[in-house]
């Protein structure tokens, strides 16, 4: 497979993310599928940011440690990545900001100064130098610039680019592949589109990395999509406002990370008792507590599985790439309405803020689950007992209907009760909904299997590990299995996935092996865990090495 890995690095505020996306866009136009990992500390200016863009013939979902090209806007881009730079890595650097480097120096600062251009255009210069070095047409660069840069800044950027283009010669040539391109989106954007697809009316959020950009994305597109976006005082307000919104019939989602999710747990339990549909996007990051806000982790699995006092059914989906994020966010929203339960889209920084080529046609169609609506006949009872445990929904105003939602244990009409028998019956209603949801999910592919079908070692993972695990397992000839739904756990499909396996290795971005624990919960054994808990996702090389060790 033809592929390239390009790193661009500089300081926060120097537009590294934008530059990375521009490079991704260039590759896209050349027919490559891309994945971009963006690494940044929690600060606004300074520090060291870098993006690694991996472009390949086929879909990829992880970065490599070994780099083909390094574009260094600061010295850290060389120094901190020394072991990723091989002899044949093409290194371009700004001769002013970078003092110690081997490769091709570009007098970027000088160009920018001479052109009286703002400092932020340094990255345009670097991209132009990259294009020239990689044999990419300047017309393509220009057209990409014209799409991504605001009208009033375009000229100065092109001027600077032109100069930098001339400051270096072609070093190698990235060939076009002739494939049709695909839009590059972040996980947040794919989740947002999935929610829209599932019927989202209202999104309510309080900023928190890594889902702030989901809030921003939807807020920016309230004209493109029929969605209302609200940013209230805090996550408690978010969650409770969302439940009110759902009560009034709006399909509502919220987004946060672990710390904000803590504040939503009381509302989550209220959703459980009052049977209010709600979808929560939980983007994990390293904890405990504030932890490392801009880095990644999968440390909240059992928290979301068990959050909220008391026992109530919930759906938890765990997409591993954009297509799954799209499909399962839509599914989460729709199923939450069908079963009147909370649904959680469990993601993490790697997925939320990673950029991937998105192929909507490759995404599975989400199940078209619709809410059961009251037919208007007879007396309305919000919590009417049915075989499925699902009570028909009505929203105010509904003439003749009394719509009583309740956080207390209640009777069918929604009036408070403390009667022992009725309490038991209502708890069983909840259990029936859980069982029905589990049965319905049997009809979908909720466990994804790949790799060598006959391998006896299965690599299990969830969520954003997908990209790295799939490739590493392929290299090593192993089989992989991944639950797309974490709750209700797809026991039968997992059993099938494990058919013929005699050893299971869990790959996780946490310190205690939370997927392994979940599998053991359900009676499956796990032989080994390969864990990473330093806030960084596995690179392909690192995972391959760790896995081959584990297999040995």
């Amino acid at each position, binding site marked *: 497979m033809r592929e390239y890995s390009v790193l661009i690095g500089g300081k926060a505020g120097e537009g590294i993310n934008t530059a990375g996306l521009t490079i991704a*866009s260039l590759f*896209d136009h050349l027919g490559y599928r891309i994945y971009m990992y963006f690494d940044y500390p929690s600060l606004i200016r300074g520090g060291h940011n870098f993006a690694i863009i991996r472009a390949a013939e086929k879909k990829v979902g992880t970065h490599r440690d070994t780099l083909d090209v390094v574009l260094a806007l600061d010295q850290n881009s060389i120094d901190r990545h020394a072991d990723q730079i091989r002899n044949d890595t093409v290194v371009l650097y700004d001769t002013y900001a970078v003092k110690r480097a081997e490769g091709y120096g570009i007098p970027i600062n000088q160009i920018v100064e001479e052109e009286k251009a703002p400092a932020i255009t340094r990255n345009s210069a670097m991209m132009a130098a990259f294009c020239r070095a990689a044999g990419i047409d300047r017309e393509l660069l220009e057209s990409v610039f014209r*799409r991504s840069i605001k009208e009033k800044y375009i000229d100065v950027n092109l001027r600077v680019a032109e100069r930098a283009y001339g400051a270096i010669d072609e070093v190698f040539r990235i060939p076009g592949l002739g494939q049709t*391109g*695909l*839009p*590059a*989106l972040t996980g947040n954007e794919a989740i947002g*589109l999935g929610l*829209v*697809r599932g*019927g989202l*009316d*209202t999104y*309510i959020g309080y900023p928190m990395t890594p889902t702030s950009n989901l809030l921003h994305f939807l807020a920016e*597109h309230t004209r*493109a*999509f*029929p969605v*209302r976006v*609200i940013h*209230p*005082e*805090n996550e*408690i*307000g978010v969650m*409770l*406002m*969302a*439940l*009110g*919104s*759902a*009560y*009034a*019939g*709006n399909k*509502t989602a919220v987004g946060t990370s672990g710390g904000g999710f803590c504040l939503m747990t*009381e*509302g989550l339990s*209220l959703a459980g008792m*009052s049977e209010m549909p709600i979808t929560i996007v939980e983007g994990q990051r390293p904890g405990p507590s504030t932890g490392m806000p801009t880095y990644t982790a999968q440390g909240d699995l059992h928290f979301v599985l068990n959050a909220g006092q008391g026992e109530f059914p919930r759906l938890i989906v765990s997409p591993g790439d954009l297509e799954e994020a799209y499909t399962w966010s839509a599914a989460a929203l729709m199923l939450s309405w069908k079963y009147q339960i909370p649904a959680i889209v469990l993601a993490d920084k790697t997925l939320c803020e990673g950029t991937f080529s*998105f192929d*909507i046609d490759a995404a599975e169609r989400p199940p078209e689950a619709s809410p059961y609506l009251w037919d208007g006949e007879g007396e309305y009872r919000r919590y009417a007992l049915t075989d499925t445990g699902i009570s028909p929904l009505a*929203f*105010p*105003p*509904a*003439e003749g*209907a*009394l*719509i*009583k*939602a*309740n*956080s*207390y244990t209640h009777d069918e009409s*929604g*009036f*408070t009760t403390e009667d022992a028998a009725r309490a038991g019956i209502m708890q069983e209603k909840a259990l029936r909904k859980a069982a029905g949801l589990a049965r319905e999910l049997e009809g979908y592919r909720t466990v994804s299997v790949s790799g060598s079908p006959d391998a006896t070692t299965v690599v299990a993972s969830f969520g954003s590990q997908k990209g790295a695990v799939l490739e590493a397992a392929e290299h090593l000839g192993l089989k992989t299995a991944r639950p797309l739904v974490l709750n209700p756990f797809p026991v039968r499909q997992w059993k099938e996935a494990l058919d013929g396996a005699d050893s299971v290795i869990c790959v996780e971005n946490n310190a205690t092996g939370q997927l392994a624990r979940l599998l053991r919960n359900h009676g499956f054994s796990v032989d080994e865990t390969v864990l990473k808990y330093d806030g960084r996702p596995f690179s392909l090389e690192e995972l391959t090495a760790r896995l081959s060790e584990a297999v040995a």
Partner: protein
Amino acid sequence: MNGSDLISPAQNTWCPGCGNFGIQHMIKAAIAEITGEGFPRERIVMVTGIGCHGKIADYFNINTYYAIHGRAIPVAAGIKVANPDLKVICHVGDGDAYAEGLDHLVFAAKRNADITVIVHDNRVYGLTTGQYTPTSPAGFKGRSTPEGVPEHPINPLELMLASGATHIARGYSRRLQPMKQAFLEGMRHRGFSFIEILQICATYFNLTDYYNDHVYDLAEGDIDTGDYESALATIREWDYSADAPIALGTFYRVGRPTFEENFPARKEGMEDREGLIRDFLQGHR
């Protein structure tokens, strides 16, 4: 229409003499009045907190969301923004809205959410058997403060004025007709209305005599309800602790755009969601 069919068959479990009965009676009368005028009953939603006050949800044949302690107000705001055609009344307690969930009260006022918040201020946690609340007077001996609360109470009306509430009123659970008027005014006010009811708790803090001695009704001209300073001066007459005359009535009332107006009604022609998404993706490369 006297509203008797508004009352549900649920058994009422408030203590004899509880001020909640008066509140219930008058909100019923107020609802009967607006429905009598043609406002459809099904467009009314009542949201409550948890506490003795919250039980009012069970007692009404009205759409209700019996929410959780301290968090009724964001639920009410969420309902209203989702469907601005609804009239949303929010019954909360003093422990509920002034302690557990104070921030939501302030923000509902700041945003001018078009909901009516009625605080059953008995100045005690009733349902949890008698602890002090933010409006208990200094020295109050509650079960968590057996030697007397050393803190000074807040004056919730003052706080609401500072938070941007556009309608501020106070009633007393034993003055029935003025309460009804207050509820009606609040429900008719476009924007956030805050109505604090000094509510007798017969069991844990019976201030009947105290209130009977101290309350007076604001008369026409006592106060300029459009004027901040005028409202504030009257609001500050009594500080919830020291002896002073206690004004009842409307203190403040101004017009301001509501929260819900920020979200224009749903767009037409947006049913094909997958189409919208594909359009978006088309424009995205």
